[in-house]
Protein backbone atom coordinates (compact mmCIF):
# COMPACT_ATOMS: atom_id res chain seq x y z
CA UNK A 1 0.00 0.00 0.00
CA UNK A 2 1.49 3.30 -1.05
CA UNK A 3 0.59 6.43 0.88
CA UNK A 4 1.19 8.74 -2.07
CA UNK A 5 -1.29 7.22 -4.46
CA UNK A 6 -4.02 6.71 -1.90
CA UNK A 7 -4.34 9.67 0.42
CA UNK A 8 -7.47 9.32 2.52
CA UNK A 9 -9.46 12.37 3.55
CA UNK A 10 -11.90 12.80 6.40
CA UNK A 11 -15.31 13.91 5.17
CA UNK A 12 -18.18 15.01 7.44
CA UNK A 13 -21.26 12.89 6.73
CA UNK A 14 -23.81 13.89 9.36
CA UNK A 15 -24.52 15.54 12.68
CA UNK A 16 -26.88 13.56 14.88
CA UNK A 17 -30.08 15.48 15.63
CA UNK A 18 -31.06 17.20 17.75
CA UNK A 19 -27.85 18.66 19.14
CA UNK A 20 -27.52 18.27 22.89
CA UNK A 21 -26.68 21.99 23.19
CA UNK A 22 -24.57 21.23 26.23
CA UNK A 23 -21.25 19.46 26.70
CA UNK A 24 -21.33 15.89 25.42
CA UNK A 25 -18.56 13.78 26.90
CA UNK A 26 -18.37 10.59 24.86
CA UNK A 27 -20.23 8.22 22.55
CA UNK A 28 -20.36 4.42 22.62
CA UNK A 29 -21.46 2.48 19.52
CA UNK A 30 -23.64 -0.58 20.26
CA UNK A 31 -21.73 -3.82 19.66
CA UNK A 32 -24.42 -5.19 17.32
CA UNK A 33 -27.26 -2.73 16.63
CA UNK A 34 -26.85 0.43 14.53
CA UNK A 35 -27.25 2.77 17.50
CA UNK A 36 -25.04 5.06 19.61
CA UNK A 37 -25.20 6.09 23.26
CA UNK A 38 -23.90 9.59 24.10
CA UNK A 39 -23.10 10.57 27.71
CA UNK A 40 -23.82 14.18 28.54
CA UNK A 41 -23.34 16.91 31.11
CA UNK A 42 -27.14 17.27 31.22
CA UNK A 43 -27.32 14.03 33.29
CA UNK A 44 -28.78 12.04 30.41
CA UNK A 45 -27.66 9.52 27.84
CA UNK A 46 -29.03 10.04 24.32
CA UNK A 47 -29.56 7.08 22.03
CA UNK A 48 -29.04 7.96 18.34
CA UNK A 49 -29.80 5.93 15.22
CA UNK A 50 -26.92 5.32 12.83
CA UNK A 51 -29.41 4.85 9.99
CA UNK A 52 -31.46 8.05 10.37
CA UNK A 53 -29.01 10.21 12.40
CA UNK A 54 -31.87 11.07 14.76
CA UNK A 55 -32.32 10.64 18.48
CA UNK A 56 -34.28 7.50 19.39
CA UNK A 57 -34.55 8.03 23.12
CA UNK A 58 -33.21 9.91 26.09
CA UNK A 59 -32.23 7.97 29.20
CA UNK A 60 -32.97 10.20 32.16
CA UNK A 61 -33.59 10.11 35.88
CA UNK A 62 -30.82 7.88 37.14
CA UNK A 63 -28.02 10.29 37.92
CA UNK A 64 -27.86 13.53 39.89
CA UNK A 65 -24.83 14.95 38.06
CA UNK A 66 -23.11 14.78 34.65
CA UNK A 67 -22.89 11.37 33.05
CA UNK A 68 -19.23 11.14 32.11
CA UNK A 69 -19.06 7.69 30.55
CA UNK A 70 -21.19 4.84 29.25
CA UNK A 71 -20.51 1.36 27.87
CA UNK A 72 -22.59 -1.36 26.21
CA UNK A 73 -22.30 -4.82 27.66
CA UNK A 74 -21.05 -7.15 24.91
CA UNK A 75 -22.69 -10.45 24.02
CA UNK A 76 -26.20 -9.81 25.38
CA UNK A 77 -29.18 -11.60 23.85
CA UNK A 78 -32.60 -10.05 23.20
CA UNK A 79 -31.72 -7.09 25.33
CA UNK A 80 -29.28 -4.21 25.46
CA UNK A 81 -27.45 -3.43 28.69
CA UNK A 82 -25.79 -0.06 29.21
CA UNK A 83 -23.52 0.90 32.10
CA UNK A 84 -23.23 4.59 32.99
CA UNK A 85 -20.70 6.38 35.22
CA UNK A 86 -21.50 9.76 36.70
CA UNK A 87 -19.94 12.67 38.57
CA UNK A 88 -22.48 11.77 41.30
CA UNK A 89 -20.06 8.91 42.23
CA UNK A 90 -22.47 6.15 41.20
CA UNK A 91 -22.61 3.80 38.25
CA UNK A 92 -25.88 2.65 36.74
CA UNK A 93 -26.97 -0.44 34.83
CA UNK A 94 -29.79 0.14 32.35
CA UNK A 95 -31.75 -2.52 30.45
CA UNK A 96 -33.75 -2.40 27.25
CA UNK A 97 -35.67 -5.26 25.60
CA UNK A 98 -34.62 -5.71 22.00
CA UNK A 99 -37.61 -7.31 20.29
CA UNK A 100 -36.71 -8.58 16.87
CA UNK A 101 -36.87 -5.63 14.49
CA UNK A 102 -37.73 -3.27 17.30
CA UNK A 103 -35.22 -0.75 16.13
CA UNK A 104 -36.78 -0.54 12.71
CA UNK A 105 -40.20 -0.18 14.28
CA UNK A 106 -38.75 2.45 16.54
CA UNK A 107 -37.59 4.51 13.61
CA UNK A 108 -40.95 4.54 11.94
CA UNK A 109 -42.96 5.55 14.97
CA UNK A 110 -44.14 9.09 15.03
CA UNK A 111 -42.48 11.52 17.37
CA UNK A 112 -45.51 11.69 19.64
CA UNK A 113 -45.76 7.96 20.14
CA UNK A 114 -42.11 7.83 20.88
CA UNK A 115 -42.10 10.43 23.62
CA UNK A 116 -44.84 8.50 25.43
CA UNK A 117 -42.91 5.25 25.28
CA UNK A 118 -39.58 6.84 25.98
CA UNK A 119 -39.53 6.51 29.75
CA UNK A 120 -40.53 2.85 29.63
CA UNK A 121 -37.94 1.89 27.06
CA UNK A 122 -35.00 1.96 29.40
CA UNK A 123 -35.17 0.46 32.86
CA UNK A 124 -32.75 1.68 35.54
CA UNK A 125 -31.97 -1.80 36.88
CA UNK A 126 -29.08 -1.40 39.32
CA UNK A 127 -27.18 1.38 40.99
CA UNK A 128 -23.56 0.58 41.86
CA UNK A 129 -22.45 2.56 44.90
CA UNK A 130 -19.01 2.50 46.44
CA UNK A 131 -16.86 5.19 44.87
CA UNK A 132 -16.28 8.26 47.02
CA UNK A 133 -16.13 10.80 44.20
CA UNK A 134 -16.80 11.28 40.48
CA UNK A 135 -16.70 8.22 38.24
CA UNK A 136 -14.70 9.04 35.13
CA UNK A 137 -14.94 5.89 33.05
CA UNK A 138 -16.73 2.54 32.88
CA UNK A 139 -15.77 -0.50 30.77
CA UNK A 140 -16.99 -4.09 30.26
CA UNK A 141 -14.53 -6.92 29.80
CA UNK A 142 -14.55 -8.57 26.37
CA UNK A 143 -16.67 -11.47 27.59
CA UNK A 144 -19.04 -9.19 29.49
CA UNK A 145 -18.32 -10.91 32.80
CA UNK A 146 -16.65 -7.94 34.50
CA UNK A 147 -17.42 -4.24 34.69
CA UNK A 148 -14.61 -1.85 35.66
CA UNK A 149 -15.22 1.65 37.03
CA UNK A 150 -12.66 4.30 37.98
CA UNK A 151 -12.90 7.51 39.93
CA UNK A 152 -11.22 10.63 41.27
CA UNK A 153 -11.06 8.70 44.56
CA UNK A 154 -7.92 7.02 43.07
CA UNK A 155 -9.52 3.58 42.91
CA UNK A 156 -10.54 1.14 40.20
CA UNK A 157 -13.42 -1.18 41.09
CA UNK A 158 -14.12 -4.43 39.32
CA UNK A 159 -17.70 -5.67 39.52
CA UNK A 160 -18.95 -9.08 38.53
CA UNK A 161 -22.56 -9.83 37.66
CA UNK A 162 -23.36 -12.97 39.66
CA UNK A 163 -26.92 -13.30 38.41
CA UNK A 164 -29.39 -10.85 36.94
CA UNK A 165 -28.98 -7.43 38.54
CA UNK A 166 -26.80 -8.73 41.36
CA UNK A 167 -23.34 -7.19 41.10
CA UNK A 168 -20.55 -8.10 43.45
CA UNK A 169 -17.35 -6.12 43.99
CA UNK A 170 -14.52 -8.49 43.17
CA UNK A 171 -11.67 -5.98 43.49
CA UNK A 172 -10.86 -2.47 44.65
CA UNK A 173 -7.51 -1.47 43.14
CA UNK A 174 -5.74 1.52 44.66
CA UNK A 175 -2.52 1.72 42.68
CA UNK A 176 -2.84 5.24 41.27
CA UNK A 177 -1.72 8.35 43.14
CA UNK A 178 -4.44 10.52 41.63
CA UNK A 179 -7.71 10.87 39.78
CA UNK A 180 -8.20 7.91 37.42
CA UNK A 181 -9.41 9.04 34.00
CA UNK A 182 -9.91 5.88 32.02
CA UNK A 183 -10.31 2.12 32.15
CA UNK A 184 -10.14 -0.26 29.21
CA UNK A 185 -10.10 -4.09 28.95
CA UNK A 186 -7.85 -6.14 26.69
CA UNK A 187 -9.88 -7.46 23.71
CA UNK A 188 -9.02 -11.13 24.34
CA UNK A 189 -7.83 -11.50 27.94
CA UNK A 190 -9.21 -10.48 31.33
CA UNK A 191 -6.46 -7.87 31.52
CA UNK A 192 -7.50 -4.38 32.62
CA UNK A 193 -5.68 -1.12 31.90
CA UNK A 194 -6.23 2.16 33.76
CA UNK A 195 -4.72 5.62 33.25
CA UNK A 196 -4.89 8.98 34.91
CA UNK A 197 -3.85 12.18 36.56
CA UNK A 198 -0.68 10.67 38.04
CA UNK A 199 0.62 10.37 34.44
CA UNK A 200 0.78 6.57 34.64
CA UNK A 201 -0.90 3.57 33.06
CA UNK A 202 -1.41 0.44 35.15
CA UNK A 203 -2.38 -3.06 34.11
CA UNK A 204 -4.14 -5.61 36.29
CA UNK A 205 -5.09 -9.25 36.10
CA UNK A 206 -6.40 -11.92 38.41
CA UNK A 207 -3.77 -14.04 40.13
CA UNK A 208 -5.27 -17.09 41.83
CA UNK A 209 -8.18 -15.18 43.42
CA UNK A 210 -6.78 -11.67 43.79
CA UNK A 211 -6.68 -8.90 41.22
CA UNK A 212 -3.20 -7.39 41.21
CA UNK A 213 -1.23 -4.77 39.32
CA UNK A 214 1.01 -6.63 36.86
CA UNK A 215 2.62 -3.65 35.12
CA UNK A 216 3.11 0.11 35.45
CA UNK A 217 3.91 2.40 32.53
CA UNK A 218 5.21 5.81 33.60
CA UNK A 219 6.71 7.36 30.47
CA UNK A 220 4.04 10.03 29.93
CA UNK A 221 4.85 13.50 31.29
CA UNK A 222 1.28 14.61 32.03
CA UNK A 223 -2.24 13.27 32.64
CA UNK A 224 -3.04 10.21 30.52
CA UNK A 225 -6.58 10.80 29.28
CA UNK A 226 -7.48 7.70 27.34
CA UNK A 227 -6.41 4.25 26.18
CA UNK A 228 -7.33 1.79 23.47
CA UNK A 229 -6.13 -1.68 22.59
CA UNK A 230 -5.12 -2.81 19.13
CA UNK A 231 -7.61 -5.14 17.46
CA UNK A 232 -6.54 -8.79 17.51
CA UNK A 233 -4.95 -9.77 14.19
CA UNK A 234 -4.54 -6.16 13.07
CA UNK A 235 -5.26 -6.25 9.32
CA UNK A 236 -3.19 -3.16 8.49
CA UNK A 237 0.04 -5.07 9.04
CA UNK A 238 -1.00 -8.59 8.07
CA UNK A 239 -2.46 -7.58 4.70
CA UNK A 240 0.63 -5.70 3.59
CA UNK A 241 3.44 -7.77 5.07
CA UNK A 242 4.64 -9.24 1.76
CA UNK A 243 7.52 -11.68 1.34
CA UNK A 244 10.19 -9.65 3.19
CA UNK A 245 11.78 -11.90 5.84
CA UNK A 246 12.47 -9.11 8.36
CA UNK A 247 8.86 -7.98 8.22
CA UNK A 248 7.58 -11.51 8.61
CA UNK A 249 9.74 -11.94 11.69
CA UNK A 250 8.52 -8.66 13.18
CA UNK A 251 4.93 -9.71 12.55
CA UNK A 252 5.52 -13.03 14.30
CA UNK A 253 6.98 -11.20 17.30
CA UNK A 254 3.97 -8.88 17.37
CA UNK A 255 1.63 -11.86 17.37
CA UNK A 256 3.45 -13.25 20.40
CA UNK A 257 2.96 -9.93 22.22
CA UNK A 258 -0.74 -9.82 21.44
CA UNK A 259 -2.72 -6.62 20.98
CA UNK A 260 -0.73 -3.46 21.71
CA UNK A 261 -2.01 -0.55 23.79
CA UNK A 262 -2.36 3.09 22.64
CA UNK A 263 -2.40 5.96 25.14
CA UNK A 264 -2.95 9.70 24.73
CA UNK A 265 -1.92 12.43 27.13
CA UNK A 266 -1.88 16.06 28.10
CA UNK A 267 1.84 15.86 27.23
CA UNK A 268 0.65 16.03 23.58
CA UNK A 269 1.91 12.56 22.70
CA UNK A 270 0.20 9.34 21.66
CA UNK A 271 2.31 6.30 22.46
CA UNK A 272 2.01 2.65 21.54
CA UNK A 273 2.93 0.05 24.16
CA UNK A 274 3.81 -3.54 23.51
CA UNK A 275 3.99 -6.44 25.90
CA UNK A 276 7.29 -8.30 25.98
CA UNK A 277 6.41 -11.89 25.06
CA UNK A 278 6.89 -14.13 28.06
CA UNK A 279 8.96 -16.68 26.21
CA UNK A 280 7.64 -18.71 29.10
CA UNK A 281 9.13 -17.58 32.42
CA UNK A 282 9.09 -21.28 33.26
CA UNK A 283 11.60 -21.90 30.49
CA UNK A 284 14.28 -19.97 32.35
CA UNK A 285 16.34 -21.71 34.97
CA UNK A 286 14.86 -21.01 38.39
CA UNK A 287 18.04 -19.40 39.75
CA UNK A 288 17.84 -16.60 37.15
CA UNK A 289 14.50 -15.43 38.37
CA UNK A 290 13.91 -13.16 41.31
CA UNK A 291 12.12 -15.35 43.82
CA UNK A 292 8.65 -14.13 44.70
CA UNK A 293 7.64 -14.37 48.31
CA UNK A 294 3.97 -13.65 47.94
CA UNK A 295 3.11 -14.81 44.49
CA UNK A 296 2.89 -18.41 43.49
CA UNK A 297 3.73 -17.69 39.88
CA UNK A 298 5.08 -14.71 38.06
CA UNK A 299 2.25 -12.76 36.48
CA UNK A 300 4.16 -9.50 36.11
CA UNK A 301 4.22 -8.15 32.60
CA UNK A 302 6.65 -5.85 30.87
CA UNK A 303 5.10 -3.26 28.53
CA UNK A 304 7.62 -1.27 26.49
CA UNK A 305 7.18 1.65 24.14
CA UNK A 306 6.74 0.42 20.57
CA UNK A 307 6.15 3.78 18.89
CA UNK A 308 5.30 7.42 19.40
CA UNK A 309 2.83 8.74 16.84
CA UNK A 310 3.65 11.88 14.83
CA UNK A 311 2.90 14.96 16.95
CA UNK A 312 -0.01 16.92 15.53
CA UNK A 313 -1.99 18.15 18.53
CA UNK A 314 -1.29 21.50 20.16
CA UNK A 315 -3.35 20.98 23.31
CA UNK A 316 -4.38 18.07 25.56
CA UNK A 317 -5.28 14.90 23.64
CA UNK A 318 -8.50 13.62 25.18
CA UNK A 319 -9.26 10.54 23.13
CA UNK A 320 -7.56 7.86 21.08
CA UNK A 321 -9.35 5.09 19.17
CA UNK A 322 -7.87 2.08 17.39
CA UNK A 323 -10.07 0.85 14.57
CA UNK A 324 -11.00 -2.83 14.89
CA UNK A 325 -11.53 -3.07 11.13
CA UNK A 326 -8.65 -1.24 9.50
CA UNK A 327 -6.08 -0.80 12.28
CA UNK A 328 -6.12 2.99 11.79
CA UNK A 329 -5.79 5.15 14.90
CA UNK A 330 -7.80 8.36 15.41
CA UNK A 331 -7.19 11.04 18.04
CA UNK A 332 -8.84 14.26 19.14
CA UNK A 333 -8.64 16.85 21.88
CA UNK A 334 -8.73 20.39 23.15
CA UNK A 335 -7.37 21.87 19.90
CA UNK A 336 -10.49 20.67 18.05
CA UNK A 337 -8.55 18.54 15.56
CA UNK A 338 -9.27 14.99 14.52
CA UNK A 339 -6.16 13.20 13.27
CA UNK A 340 -6.00 9.74 11.66
CA UNK A 341 -2.78 7.73 11.66
CA UNK A 342 -1.82 4.60 9.76
CA UNK A 343 0.98 2.13 10.42
CA UNK A 344 3.09 1.19 7.43
CA UNK A 345 5.88 -1.24 6.83
CA UNK A 346 8.99 0.78 6.22
CA UNK A 347 10.23 0.71 2.64
CA UNK A 348 13.54 -1.10 2.47
CA UNK A 349 14.84 2.12 0.89
CA UNK A 350 13.89 4.09 4.02
CA UNK A 351 15.47 1.46 6.17
CA UNK A 352 18.81 1.88 4.41
CA UNK A 353 18.69 5.60 5.06
CA UNK A 354 18.08 5.10 8.73
CA UNK A 355 20.86 2.58 8.96
CA UNK A 356 23.39 4.86 7.36
CA UNK A 357 22.66 7.52 9.99
CA UNK A 358 23.03 5.41 13.08
CA UNK A 359 22.10 2.18 14.77
CA UNK A 360 19.38 0.15 13.06
CA UNK A 361 15.87 0.97 14.20
CA UNK A 362 14.14 -1.66 16.24
CA UNK A 363 11.02 -1.98 14.16
CA UNK A 364 10.44 -2.21 10.45
CA UNK A 365 7.22 -0.20 10.88
CA UNK A 366 6.31 3.48 11.06
CA UNK A 367 3.20 5.59 11.71
CA UNK A 368 2.11 8.36 9.36
CA UNK A 369 -0.69 10.89 9.52
CA UNK A 370 -3.11 9.99 6.74
CA UNK A 371 -5.98 12.41 7.41
CA UNK A 372 -6.56 15.49 9.52
CA UNK A 373 -9.44 17.88 10.15
CA UNK A 374 -9.21 21.17 12.02
CA UNK A 375 -12.16 22.79 13.80
CA UNK A 376 -14.00 19.46 13.69
CA UNK A 377 -16.64 20.82 16.08
CA UNK A 378 -16.45 24.43 14.97
CA UNK A 379 -14.45 26.29 17.63
CA UNK A 380 -15.19 23.85 20.43
CA UNK A 381 -13.10 21.21 22.14
CA UNK A 382 -13.65 17.63 21.00
CA UNK A 383 -13.87 15.19 23.91
CA UNK A 384 -14.08 11.83 22.24
CA UNK A 385 -13.64 9.90 19.04
CA UNK A 386 -14.52 6.27 18.24
CA UNK A 387 -14.92 3.94 15.25
CA UNK A 388 -18.05 2.16 14.14
CA UNK A 389 -19.57 0.55 11.06
CA UNK A 390 -21.62 2.78 8.80
CA UNK A 391 -25.32 1.86 8.57
CA UNK A 392 -27.04 4.61 6.59
CA UNK A 393 -28.03 4.43 2.91
CA UNK A 394 -24.98 6.41 1.82
CA UNK A 395 -22.55 3.66 2.76
CA UNK A 396 -20.34 2.35 0.00
CA UNK A 397 -20.11 -1.22 1.28
CA UNK A 398 -21.28 -3.49 4.12
CA UNK A 399 -18.30 -2.99 6.35
CA UNK A 400 -17.47 0.67 5.67
CA UNK A 401 -16.05 2.17 8.84
CA UNK A 402 -16.76 5.67 10.08
CA UNK A 403 -15.56 7.88 12.90
CA UNK A 404 -17.91 9.32 15.52
CA UNK A 405 -16.80 12.48 17.34
CA UNK A 406 -18.37 14.08 20.42
CA UNK A 407 -17.79 17.70 21.45
CA UNK A 408 -18.28 20.49 23.95
CA UNK A 409 -20.86 22.01 21.57
CA UNK A 410 -23.14 19.03 22.28
CA UNK A 411 -22.74 17.76 18.72
CA UNK A 412 -22.20 14.13 17.78
CA UNK A 413 -20.78 13.88 14.26
CA UNK A 414 -20.04 11.10 11.81
CA UNK A 415 -16.98 11.22 9.54
CA UNK A 416 -16.10 9.00 6.61
CA UNK A 417 -12.61 8.05 5.52
CA UNK A 418 -12.53 8.60 1.78
CA UNK A 419 -9.71 6.83 0.04
CA UNK A 420 -8.90 8.47 -3.26
CA UNK A 421 -7.41 6.58 -6.17
Amino acid at each position, binding site marked *: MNSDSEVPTLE*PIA*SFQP*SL*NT*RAWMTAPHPKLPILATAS*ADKTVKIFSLTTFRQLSSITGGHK*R*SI*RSCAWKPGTRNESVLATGS*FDASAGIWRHDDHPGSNEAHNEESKNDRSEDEDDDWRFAVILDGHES*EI*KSVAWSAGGQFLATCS*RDKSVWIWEEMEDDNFETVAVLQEHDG*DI*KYVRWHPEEDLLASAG*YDDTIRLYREDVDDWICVSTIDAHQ*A*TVWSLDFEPPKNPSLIDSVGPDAARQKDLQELEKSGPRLASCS*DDLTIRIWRRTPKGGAEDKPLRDRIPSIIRTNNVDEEWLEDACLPKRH*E*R*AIYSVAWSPKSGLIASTG*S*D*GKIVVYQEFWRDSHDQDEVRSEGPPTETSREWKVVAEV*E*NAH*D*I*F*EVNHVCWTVRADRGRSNEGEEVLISTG*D*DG*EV*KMWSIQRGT
Partner: protein
Amino acid sequence: MDDNKDNANPVILNASDLPTRHGESLLKKADDPIGIYLGGLLSATQPIDDPFDEALSASESESDRDFDEEIDAQEIYDLIAPISDPEHPLSLGSLAVVNLPDIHISRPSSARSRISTVVIDITPTITHCSLATVIGLGVRVRLEQALPPRFRIDVRIKEGTHSTGDAVTKQLGDKERVAAALENNTLRGVIRRMLSTCE
Protein backbone atom coordinates in the same frame (compact mmCIF):
# COMPACT_ATOMS: atom_id res chain seq x y z
CA MET B 1 -12.16 36.85 62.31
CA ASP B 2 -9.05 38.12 60.58
CA ASP B 3 -6.97 35.53 62.36
CA ASN B 4 -8.67 32.81 60.36
CA LYS B 5 -7.64 34.29 57.07
CA ASP B 6 -4.61 32.96 55.25
CA ASN B 7 -3.28 36.46 54.85
CA ALA B 8 -4.87 38.94 57.24
CA ASN B 9 -2.89 41.97 56.04
CA PRO B 10 -2.42 41.81 52.30
CA VAL B 11 -0.73 44.57 50.32
CA ILE B 12 -3.39 46.63 48.60
CA LEU B 13 -2.72 48.66 45.49
CA ASN B 14 -4.15 52.14 45.15
CA ALA B 15 -7.01 52.17 42.64
CA SER B 16 -5.31 54.93 40.65
CA ASP B 17 -2.23 52.73 40.25
CA LEU B 18 -4.11 49.90 38.56
CA PRO B 19 -3.52 49.52 34.85
CA THR B 20 -6.19 51.08 32.66
CA ARG B 21 -6.40 52.02 29.05
CA HIS B 22 -5.99 55.73 28.30
CA GLY B 23 -8.16 57.00 25.51
CA GLU B 24 -11.85 57.57 25.70
CA SER B 25 -13.52 55.28 23.24
CA LEU B 26 -11.59 52.28 24.47
CA LEU B 27 -12.23 53.13 28.10
CA LYS B 28 -15.91 53.20 27.39
CA LYS B 29 -15.64 49.73 25.94
CA ALA B 30 -13.81 48.45 28.99
CA ASP B 31 -16.45 49.90 31.26
CA ASP B 32 -19.08 47.67 29.81
CA PRO B 33 -17.33 44.51 28.72
CA ILE B 34 -20.40 42.35 29.18
CA GLY B 35 -22.43 44.10 26.54
CA ILE B 36 -19.66 43.79 24.01
CA TYR B 37 -18.77 40.20 24.66
CA LEU B 38 -22.24 38.84 25.03
CA GLY B 39 -22.84 39.51 21.34
CA GLY B 40 -19.82 37.44 20.42
CA LEU B 41 -20.71 34.71 22.85
CA LEU B 42 -24.22 34.34 21.50
CA SER B 43 -23.25 34.23 17.87
CA ALA B 44 -20.56 31.68 18.64
CA THR B 45 -22.82 29.31 20.54
CA GLN B 46 -25.89 29.68 18.40
CA PRO B 47 -26.76 26.34 16.84
CA ILE B 48 -25.93 26.29 13.18
CA ASP B 49 -28.48 24.57 10.95
CA ASP B 50 -25.93 22.94 8.76
CA PRO B 51 -22.45 23.05 10.19
CA PHE B 52 -21.03 21.72 6.95
CA ASP B 53 -22.47 24.51 4.85
CA GLU B 54 -19.27 26.07 3.62
CA ALA B 55 -20.67 29.48 2.80
CA LEU B 56 -22.08 29.87 6.28
CA SER B 57 -18.99 28.83 8.15
CA ALA B 58 -16.77 30.97 5.95
CA SER B 59 -18.76 34.14 6.59
CA GLU B 60 -18.94 33.36 10.27
CA SER B 61 -15.25 32.79 10.62
CA GLU B 62 -14.59 36.14 8.98
CA SER B 63 -16.70 38.04 11.48
CA ASP B 64 -15.12 36.03 14.28
CA ARG B 65 -11.68 37.13 13.18
CA ASP B 66 -12.64 40.80 13.23
CA PHE B 67 -13.98 40.36 16.69
CA ASP B 68 -10.92 38.43 17.77
CA GLU B 69 -8.58 41.27 17.00
CA GLU B 70 -10.32 43.58 19.44
CA ILE B 71 -9.39 41.50 22.45
CA ASP B 72 -6.08 42.35 24.07
CA ALA B 73 -4.44 41.81 27.45
CA GLN B 74 -5.92 45.00 28.90
CA GLU B 75 -9.42 43.82 28.11
CA ILE B 76 -8.75 40.44 29.67
CA TYR B 77 -7.41 42.30 32.71
CA ASP B 78 -10.54 44.44 32.89
CA LEU B 79 -12.65 41.29 32.92
CA ILE B 80 -10.85 39.61 35.79
CA ALA B 81 -9.47 42.48 37.92
CA PRO B 82 -12.87 43.26 39.53
CA ILE B 83 -13.31 39.64 40.74
CA SER B 84 -13.52 39.68 44.56
CA ASP B 85 -11.04 37.82 46.68
CA PRO B 86 -12.89 34.98 48.49
CA GLU B 87 -11.67 36.16 51.91
CA HIS B 88 -11.14 39.91 51.57
CA PRO B 89 -13.65 42.53 50.43
CA LEU B 90 -11.08 43.50 47.80
CA SER B 91 -10.63 42.88 44.09
CA LEU B 92 -8.02 40.54 42.61
CA GLY B 93 -6.66 43.60 40.76
CA SER B 94 -6.10 45.66 43.91
CA LEU B 95 -4.49 42.68 45.66
CA ALA B 96 -2.15 42.25 42.66
CA VAL B 97 -3.30 38.64 42.31
CA VAL B 98 -3.93 39.37 38.65
CA ASN B 99 -1.47 41.64 36.86
CA LEU B 100 -1.47 43.01 33.34
CA PRO B 101 2.06 41.81 32.41
CA ASP B 102 1.04 38.25 33.38
CA ILE B 103 -1.66 38.00 30.73
CA HIS B 104 -0.63 36.58 27.38
CA ILE B 105 -2.75 35.97 24.30
CA SER B 106 -1.64 33.74 21.45
CA ARG B 107 -3.35 33.94 18.10
CA PRO B 108 -4.35 30.88 16.07
CA SER B 109 -1.28 28.82 15.22
CA SER B 110 -2.17 28.37 11.56
CA ALA B 111 -4.31 30.00 8.92
CA ARG B 112 -6.92 27.27 9.23
CA SER B 113 -7.06 27.18 13.03
CA ARG B 114 -9.45 29.53 14.78
CA ILE B 115 -8.35 28.75 18.33
CA SER B 116 -6.71 31.50 20.39
CA THR B 117 -5.18 30.93 23.79
CA VAL B 118 -5.22 33.19 26.84
CA VAL B 119 -2.62 32.39 29.49
CA ILE B 120 -2.98 34.07 32.87
CA ASP B 121 -0.41 33.66 35.61
CA ILE B 122 -1.93 34.52 38.96
CA THR B 123 0.05 35.53 42.04
CA PRO B 124 -1.44 34.33 45.35
CA THR B 125 -1.06 36.91 48.13
CA ILE B 126 0.98 34.44 50.18
CA THR B 127 2.84 31.28 49.18
CA HIS B 128 0.65 28.90 51.19
CA CYS B 129 -2.69 30.45 50.27
CA SER B 130 -5.19 27.62 50.54
CA LEU B 131 -7.62 29.50 48.33
CA ALA B 132 -5.35 29.64 45.28
CA THR B 133 -7.41 26.93 43.53
CA VAL B 134 -10.69 28.74 44.17
CA ILE B 135 -9.24 32.04 42.95
CA GLY B 136 -7.91 30.35 39.82
CA LEU B 137 -11.26 28.69 39.24
CA GLY B 138 -12.99 32.06 39.58
CA VAL B 139 -10.69 33.57 36.94
CA ARG B 140 -11.26 30.61 34.61
CA VAL B 141 -15.04 30.71 35.03
CA ARG B 142 -15.14 34.48 34.54
CA LEU B 143 -13.27 34.22 31.23
CA GLU B 144 -15.20 31.16 30.04
CA GLN B 145 -18.39 33.12 30.54
CA ALA B 146 -17.15 36.38 29.05
CA LEU B 147 -14.97 35.28 26.14
CA PRO B 148 -16.19 33.52 22.98
CA PRO B 149 -15.62 29.74 23.17
CA ARG B 150 -12.86 30.03 20.56
CA PHE B 151 -10.57 31.06 23.40
CA ARG B 152 -8.78 28.33 25.33
CA ILE B 153 -8.09 29.64 28.82
CA ASP B 154 -5.04 28.50 30.76
CA VAL B 155 -4.96 29.80 34.33
CA ARG B 156 -1.68 29.05 36.05
CA ILE B 157 -0.06 29.89 39.35
CA LYS B 158 2.91 32.14 38.63
CA GLU B 159 6.16 30.29 39.08
CA GLY B 160 7.67 30.60 42.53
CA THR B 161 4.66 32.30 44.12
CA HIS B 162 3.04 29.29 45.77
CA SER B 163 4.25 26.25 47.68
CA THR B 164 2.10 23.84 45.63
CA GLY B 165 1.84 25.98 42.49
CA ASP B 166 2.38 23.18 40.00
CA ALA B 167 -0.30 21.01 41.58
CA VAL B 168 -2.80 23.88 41.55
CA THR B 169 -1.91 24.70 37.94
CA LYS B 170 -2.43 21.08 36.91
CA GLN B 171 -5.83 21.00 38.58
CA LEU B 172 -6.91 24.29 36.98
CA GLY B 173 -5.88 22.95 33.57
CA ASP B 174 -7.93 19.76 33.86
CA LYS B 175 -11.28 20.43 32.20
CA GLU B 176 -12.88 17.38 33.77
CA ARG B 177 -11.86 18.39 37.30
CA VAL B 178 -13.09 21.93 36.64
CA ALA B 179 -16.42 20.66 35.24
CA ALA B 180 -16.97 18.37 38.23
CA ALA B 181 -16.01 21.10 40.72
CA LEU B 182 -18.53 23.45 39.17
CA GLU B 183 -21.29 20.92 39.82
CA ASN B 184 -20.64 21.37 43.53
CA ASN B 185 -23.21 23.86 44.86
CA THR B 186 -21.08 25.17 47.72
CA LEU B 187 -18.20 25.97 45.40
CA ARG B 188 -20.56 27.46 42.85
CA GLY B 189 -21.89 29.78 45.56
CA VAL B 190 -18.38 30.93 46.46
CA ILE B 191 -17.56 31.63 42.82
CA ARG B 192 -20.85 33.43 42.27
CA ARG B 193 -20.02 35.75 45.18
CA MET B 194 -16.51 36.33 43.82
CA LEU B 195 -17.90 37.24 40.40
CA SER B 196 -20.77 39.37 41.73
CA THR B 197 -18.50 42.44 41.71
CA CYS B 198 -17.83 42.01 37.98
CA GLU B 199 -21.19 43.17 36.74
